[in-house]
């Protein structure tokens, strides 16, 4: 196990170094945009909406934006950047000439995607806390959930990447997968507002459960029952990871 982790960390280290080199643009894109959304929509729209589920709209939205950013960070990394490393720069080819297997590469990439989700969620949490939008210390539980979100959406993105022949392919996933998930997952408004059948559908989506866990933690309503929301994201993570490894083996080891 220790050896495995060491190999995954070698891949993680490569990506972390590349990220550090472009830290300014990375942080601007990963932090500034969600914060604009949070404050513009939170105060602007919040003025008309008032309270949702007993909390101010901006407090409600904070949890949504944290979930959304953790998803976006991993999705972008797993689609565009992973595809670049696999098909354009041939970084993976170099790794495969070294003692790393496809499994090692996928796990290392996923560790990095989880790290990016964690970084993104932490920074937004920090700013939100500064504005008094978080309730108590239980909010720290958001961090492991953000990392799980990274594993989950990162592995789903990698499945897409394993099929991609060009960047254009990702439009399908973004338009038909990610965007509906954002709108139905409770990021901007509670899914209760939706018709019954759609509401039940959204309960199958991992983002819904991530939001359902993060929201009570941000607004100070910690409860052990929240753990049940782990099941769907964990299942998605497990299945997507195994499927992605299988797909990449078929694609790259031929």
């Amino acid at each position, binding site marked *: 196990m220790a050896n495995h982790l060491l190999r995954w960390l070698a891949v993680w280290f*490569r990506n972390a170094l590349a990220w550090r080199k472009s830290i300014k643009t990375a942080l601007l894109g990963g932090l500034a945009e969600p914060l604009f959304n949070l404050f513009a929509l939170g105060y602007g729209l919040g003025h008309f909406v008032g309270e949702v589920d007993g909390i101010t709209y901006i407090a409600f939205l904070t949890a949504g934006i944290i979930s959304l950013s953790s998803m976006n960070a991993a999705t972008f990394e797993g689609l565009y950047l992973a595809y670049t490393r696999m098909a354009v720069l*041939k970084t993976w*080819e*170099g790794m495969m*000439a*070294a003692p790393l297997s496809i499994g090692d590469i996928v796990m290392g990439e996923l560790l990095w995607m989880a790290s990016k989700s964690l970084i993104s969620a932490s920074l937004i949490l920090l700013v939100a806390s500064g504005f008094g939008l978080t309730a108590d210390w239980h909010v720290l539980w958001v961090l492991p959930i953000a990392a799980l979100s990274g594993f989950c959406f990162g592995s789903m993105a990698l499945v897409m990447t394993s099929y991609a022949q060009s960047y254009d392919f990702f439009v399908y996933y973004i338009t038909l997968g990610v965007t509906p998930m954002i709108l139905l997952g409770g990021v901007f408004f509670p899914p209760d507002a939706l018709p019954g059948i759609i509401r039940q559908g959204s309960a199958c989506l991992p983002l819904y459960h991530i939001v359902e866990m993060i929201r009570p933690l941000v607004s100070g309503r910690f409860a052990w029952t929240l753990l049940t929301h782990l099941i769907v994201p964990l299942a998605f993570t497990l299945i997507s990871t195994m499927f992605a490894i299988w797909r990449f083996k078929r694609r*790259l080891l031929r």
Partner: protein
Amino acid sequence: MINTPVPKPSPIIVHAENLSKHYGKLCVVDGISFQINQGEFCGILGPNGAGKTTTLKMLVGNTPSTSGKLTVLGLPIPQQAREMRGRIGVVPQADNLDPDFTVVENLRVYGRYFGLKRTEVEKRITELLGFVALEEKADACINQLSGGMKRRLSIARALINRPELLILDEPSTGLDPQIRQNIWQLLRQLQREGLTIILTTHYMDEAERLCGRIILMDHGHILADRTPEELVRERIEPHVLEVFGTSVKAWKMANPLTGPIRCEQVGETCFYYGADLTSLVKTLDGWPGLRYDYRPANLEDVFLKMTGRELRDG
């Protein structure tokens, strides 16, 4: 000494027995057997589609064979491919250096893939930058390097783990003549230090100058497995006369062949093969539109004779 591999009891580096690779119904490698011993510099030659690159992919364990047995450094492949890859170096056909990183960072990151200790990697980087003469470029970005520098860095990167076997896929394709000479010099030095080297190429001069042994492949088969000297001695007539120019046809008509001379015509060039072609050479004087080259046969002649002259695209 830039690369001093730890001596291993078994001098057999690669052992392939009846190795085949099929893609669906297409047979790319068809039951090849060969053995490469420690310290050999072996070239795998063949036209496009001969099965060279697939053979290399099987060697490094990046594609499973359909049938046959393969061991590299005594380890069964692909079962223990990862362990084996920790002990070899691979230089890919197209450089896959990390453009985001400097020269040193490229080596540092790659050293991590092998699980090497930080201090060991740093020491190795200093040695390798000296070996490939890139000390001054240590902190330069990859896109500031010339094609030759990138190639040298790729070679340095493949040596980071002090490999016992170095595999190069067309190491000098796309490089200008000076840089090719420079790359050859590096490879020769590595071989002198005892490193076993396998390369694929379709430059015959490269194979002739570097390789002590040549495995000539076509259509998934091994056509010959010899030293370059043996190939030239055994598989082709001693001399070649190339005649080219606009009046080739007229000259040919006027000088019908006598004796054991073989002729091949490609466009406006005629190739004559035989033991002694001097009588033919004499007839060339007085034909103003003609140019010719009379020379000993070389590896390229063997290659063309054994694999044919038709074009191989893709």
